[in-house]
């Protein structure tokens, strides 16, 4: 455990040298928010509607900011890092560490996000709240958001770890990474709220892990009616936990198979 914390610390030490890059998002995101404010204010007033698909104006504007927050919290480079190291043979150096790659990379991802929390999320939250105050938030909704988004982080990490291992088979991983990001965006509700999809599609998506990374944490963040349905919080947590168990098993199995076939070029 001591060495795991040291890995997290190491990543933070590295990241603080490059905080400028992260902070740029705090400057760019308000522009996107202002565009969303203009777009949705005119859309809601044109339709004379109080809510669209269950979202009031504030929730709709903040939906996309919340999407950004979730990316900030769950994002990591694990897929890129692993696939690049497989292809260059650098993975050999990882295999000489007395800590398995899954744990080591998890430590790095946690460290990376802790930095982002202070450089992107907290300053962002302050700036966006000044632009458009999130009056829909309540303490329970924030707490539920924190719980579900932490689970989402683990889910995202495992999906990325598996995507990285694909390099063993494919030798080039750009396509897998591209498809994975697209699935997250389209099927996870990071592109548009899932309510805009046909009913059948929504029912199918519930069986995939993606909406438990984006859509559901967003619901708790926005304190929507769906998130306040009886048992919704426990149900989402349980499904996230089930996916984590399944993906963890897959990660272990794939790593065991893959490391047998590693041929460490150079």
């Amino acid at each position: 455990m001591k060495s795991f914390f040291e890995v997290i610390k190491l990543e933070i030490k590295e990241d603080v040298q490059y905080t400028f890059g992260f902070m740029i998002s705090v400057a760019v995101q308000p522009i996107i928010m202002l565009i969303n404010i203009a777009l949705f204010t005119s859309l809601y007033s044109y339709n004379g509607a109080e809510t669209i698909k269950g979202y009031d104006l504030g929730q709709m504007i903040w939906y996309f900011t919340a999407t950004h927050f979730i990316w900030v919290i769950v994002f990591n480079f694990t897929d890129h890092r692993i696939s690049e190291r497989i292809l260059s043979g650098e993975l050999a150096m990882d295999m000489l560490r007395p800590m398995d790659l899954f744990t080591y990379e998890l430590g790095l991802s946690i460290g990376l996000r802790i930095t982002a929390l202070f450089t992107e999320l907290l300053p962002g939250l302050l700036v966006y709240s000044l632009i458009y105050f999130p009056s829909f938030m309540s303490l329970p909704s924030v707490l539920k958001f924190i719980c579900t988004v932490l689970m989402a982080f683990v889910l995202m990490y495992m999906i990325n770890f598996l995507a990285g291992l694909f390099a063993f088979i494919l030798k080039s991983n750009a396509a897998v990474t591209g498809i994975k990001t697209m699935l997250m965006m389209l099927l996870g509700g990071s592109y548009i709220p899932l309510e805009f999809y046909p009913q059948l599609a929504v029912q199918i998506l519930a069986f995939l892990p993606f909406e438990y990374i984006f859509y559901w944490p967003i619901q708790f963040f926005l304190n929507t009616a769906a998130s306040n349905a009886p048992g919704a919080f426990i149900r989402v947590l349980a499904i996230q936990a089930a996916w984590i168990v399944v993906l963890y098993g897959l990660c272990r199995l794939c790593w065991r198979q893959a490391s047998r076939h590693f041929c460490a070029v150079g």
Partner: protein
Amino acid sequence: MNAITMQKGVTAQKTDIIQVKNLCRTFKVPKRSDSGLLSSIKALFHREYVTVNAVNDISFTVKKGEIRGLIGPNGAGKSTTIKIMSGILYPSSGEVDVMGYKPWLEREEYVKHIGVLFGQRSQLEWDLPPIDSFYLRKKLYDIPDEVYKRNIEYFKELLDIAEIINKPVRQLSLGERMKCEFVCSVLHEPPLVFLDEPTIGLDVVSKETVRGFISAINKEKNTTFILTTHDLSDIENLCENITVINNGTIVFDDGLAGLQEYFPKRKVVKVQFETPVDYHALEPFHPTSYNRMKAEFEVDLSECDVKTAVNRMFECLPVADINIESVSIEEVIRHIYTEQ
């Protein structure tokens, strides 16, 4: 039963620390008939593979406290052998016992007892000073505080790195970085260290420092080193025993002295002249190299003994100085590499 199998990680002096038996490793490599676009497209649908025997039935043992040189031409199978012994690669067949471990099966536990340095790869965090990488290793390898402090102080002095361990790695020269890579590989005091081309790209002074370091650690801590290199002066300065691998098999496995006496029937005579000599005066002696003031000859002792040969040279040539040597190691190695 030998001491190695009795207790993992602990070995008595002068017992075998590594035992390799009939080790093989094959790789499947995709084969393309030519370099054209058409053949690339064809390869998408139907790819042929060829099997390459990178390591082919290798057996050897290494004793505790040895510095063993593992040499061979490029692509001979040295690195593959090292990677199997350090647990990175699975072998196709054969047995490896290192301090009682099967490296690839118990990798995470096993790597705590070894140090590894690949000259072409880095274990240091690129954006951070080396001291941060050292500290991470302290935690990963669970090095006690006093051992860590003592070792850092010791290496600072031995390698003269006090100034550089607080600078980001990206600002270090290759020589400085390599010294820090060395610290990484021995900081946790492993009984066995694998060095894969540790002096690659280093200048003569850095090479000297690195060799001194290996030698000092070997003497003080009785650490076993397995060293691959293309620099024969590394071998001559450090190794008692060498193993030569070529085309995946062992072609020589003996002491350095054995290599020096590889051609017992051949001597090299080097002569310096008092006055310039024309080539036709040297012709009867068949010089292997020549300029007007000096020449080199090879004497085949099965045809003529050294004394007779040298006497003839004294008679016929204006000899100022003469040296009689065995065939150089470089020449022997070249012969071993090319005879396969």
